[in-house]
């Protein structure tokens, strides 16, 4: 999916307008509110391109979701259930080069819809 399709279909708010590239493609996703789960699973992906084409879907609106994405080279974070990040979190995303999006959809629903669009889940690579 193109980032612009994600934003359009799921009614996303783009919190980091200056970093937003509508043409960026997203092929993979992982969702969790526990950052160590994301760090554990996503760091087993060997191909760096995969992570760059991934989105981290989370309900965690703190700095730590941004930091986690940064450590993993994941470039897009999608906040679910209409959670609004505080200004310093948006600022950190900007500074870290992370595109920060928000949708009113729940984690399950937005994940299901993305899956239907062909976005693959990231699973543990041994």
């Amino acid at each position, binding site marked *: 999916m193109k980032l612009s399709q994600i934003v359009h279909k799921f009614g996303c708010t783009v919190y980091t307008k200056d970093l937003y590239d509508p043409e960026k493609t997203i092929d993979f996703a992982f969702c969790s509110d526990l950052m160590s*789960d994301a*760090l554990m699973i996503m760091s087993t992906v060997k191909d760096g391109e995969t992570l760059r084409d991934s989105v981290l879907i989370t309900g*965690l609106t703190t700095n730590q979701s941004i930091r986690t994405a*940064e450590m993993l080279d994941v470039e897009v974070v999608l906040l679910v259930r209409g959670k609004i990040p505080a200004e310093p979190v948006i600022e950190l995303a900007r500074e870290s080069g992370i595109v920060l999006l928000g949708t009113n959809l729940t984690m399950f629903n937005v994940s299901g819809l993305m899956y239907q669009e062909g976005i693959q889940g990231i699973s543990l690579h041994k």
Partner: protein
Amino acid sequence: MITLDRHFVIVPNDYNEAGKASSELKRTLKRMGFSRDLIKRVSVASYEAEINIVIHSLGGTADFKIIDDVIYLQFIDCGPGIPDIELAMQEGFSTANEVSRLNGFGAGMGLKNIKKAADDMILVSDCNGTVLKLKFYIREDDKNVG
């Protein structure tokens, strides 16, 4: 030759600053042109270790060094220490409180993740504090990529 030597103070329970040292480390390694894979392993391990000091300890320090072809990370904190290291290393074991869980941590995956990422890990702990030493080897194909 020493090509990196940085020292950071890690403040306990400061969830806004948590991860800052690891983030700076990552940016420095990027500037130094190492491979993505190496940088990712080092930053993920560093971040987990830094967060552990923030959420489980009374505060501590992080030291990042590169000497020749080895990256050394050292984390030292002022206690209370890990009573049973073997248990702490088990996936899913966590004593993290509600506040850290609300901040996205406490899955009990961190130490395991660190061990997997690093080429070498030494964890020493008693009631005075915990010392975590990590080593990452810089291979020829990790250099001058970025």
